[in-house]
């Protein structure tokens, strides 16, 4: 049987996150001129506002695309349906991309991809910067059958729609989006390059395929050979980019 304090805390928590519990209301006195129910409602109303603020910080581009009314209404409904279990508000929203996609797929088919990109950006933003191998060290150590070890702040995203340019759009750019801007799959790479700034790069399908294999620790020659449509020049460019951008932290020989 729960203690009086445990019971009260359960009632209060569920009243803030969901509907006000009448059993809590009868136990309190309102501050100022508030009735007990109004006082509980102050805490209850604050909850979706806080969660919406957190979602707005992470999903800033989605907010811009959807507009205040639709975005904030979606945030409120999400906050009443998905509980936060973390101590950290910025951990909130991992299911928000699917939620937005289900809600707005007819008007903004790309919204799920955009939200997925923003969630990944937040994760890379907070990830530890790694110390990359210098291009000269990498060139010296790498062989055909080497396995490249990527730093922890590197993420390759296979997106169902092209959203990187939408994400980069200036806040003041109110021009309507046209289908050709987003209506194709896109590979996007988010990474840190030895410091704390986060970079993004659009990756073409053959390069993305090779990169995915490399990040899964397939030997270099196998990964490049398996990437359909990857020309020798494109492979050289990809390796050159990985080296210059500082994505590799170690090379392992089989």
């Amino acid at each position: 049987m729960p203690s009086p304090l445990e019971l009260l805390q359960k009632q209060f928590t569920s009243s803030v996150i969901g509907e006000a519990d009448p059993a809590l209301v009868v136990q309190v006195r309102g501050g100022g001129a508030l009735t007990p129910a109004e006082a509980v409602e102050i805490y209850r109303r604050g909850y979706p506002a806080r969660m919406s603020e957190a979602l707005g910080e992470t999903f800033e581009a989605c907010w811009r695309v959807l507009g205040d009314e639709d975005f904030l209404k979606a945030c409120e409904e999400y906050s009443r349906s998905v509980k936060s279990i973390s101590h950290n508000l910025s951990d909130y929203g991992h299911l928000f991309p699917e939620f937005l996609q289900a809600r707005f797929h007819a008007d903004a088919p790309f919204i799920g991809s955009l939200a997925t990109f923003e969630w990944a950006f937040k994760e890379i933003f907070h990830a530890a910067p790694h110390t990359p191998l210098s291009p000269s060290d990498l060139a010296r150590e790498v062989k055909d059958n080497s396995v490249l070890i990527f730093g922890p702040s590197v993420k390759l995203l296979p997106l169902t729609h092209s959203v990187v340019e939408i994400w980069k759009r200036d806040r003041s750019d109110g021009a309507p989006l046209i289908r050709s801007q987003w209506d194709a799959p896109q590979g996007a790479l988010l990474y840190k390059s030895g410091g704390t700034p986060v970079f993004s790069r659009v990756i073409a399908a053959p390069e993305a395929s090779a990169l995915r294999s490399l990040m899964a620790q397939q030997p270099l020659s196998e990964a490049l050979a398996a990437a359909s449509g990857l020309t020798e020049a494109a492979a050289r460019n990809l390796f050159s980019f990985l080296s210059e951008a500082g994505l590799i932290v170690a090379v392992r020989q089989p």
Partner: protein
Amino acid sequence: MVGVGLRSAHFPRLLERRPTPVRWFEALSENYMDSEGRPLEVLKKIRADFPVALHGVSLSIGGVEGPRPGYLKRLKALMEKVEPFLVTDHLCFTGAHAANAHDLLPLPYTEEAIKTVVSNVSKVQDFLGRPIGLENVSSYLTYNESCMKEEEFLVEIAKRAGCKILLDVNNVFVSATNHGFAATDYIDRIPSELIAQIHLGGYTDMGKFLFDTHSRAPTDPVWELYRRVIRRVPEVPVLIEWDEAVPDWEGLEQEAVKAIQIAAEVKNALPA
């Protein structure tokens, strides 16, 4: 010694390292304990020039379940990185492990709540290896079952648990106005030796009640209460707290200067 809350809006200005009367910074623990990115990088740079205190909002020291798993480990790791001169959180609960309300929910002033908090504080202090400070929160309701005054509850916990008090003067004023008690009596009943830090902030008058928004400068009644308490504890660190509608650096600095001036006036008026 007057400090301000470290906010990302001021990062560029602070990294210019221009002279400032601000003597220390308070960082919100949760903003840095899960991040290895730019926020932590900036905090470390600030720490190289200024003392830093860590102030949490999610410890849930009054929660019957105790602190969330992993929370203390992360807090301790952050403490090792920034070596704060003080670690504080709020005297409240913030929900349950399975559902965090992310709010500073008030506790009933009962013996059961005292025992719960004291037990949690002991575990936290044992783990962190140092005393913590607990801040009085603003509230918009009280419980019928409370059997003592808020300040009695706060002091009893600090004495039994061996922790300190972060006295938020604005919160005292907000709760005093909302619940009809004298803020001066509350302030006077907090023993000087228990006060480790003072917070000053701004509230919003909602008509039916005062709301602790931290969205404006401290008001005159809060400055008067500050004057009253600083007379007793002139060396205690003081913080200007501003979380919503954060002003530019100069606007924030202006309030810090006001706190410094009041402290100097009070100190000069004290008998030699």
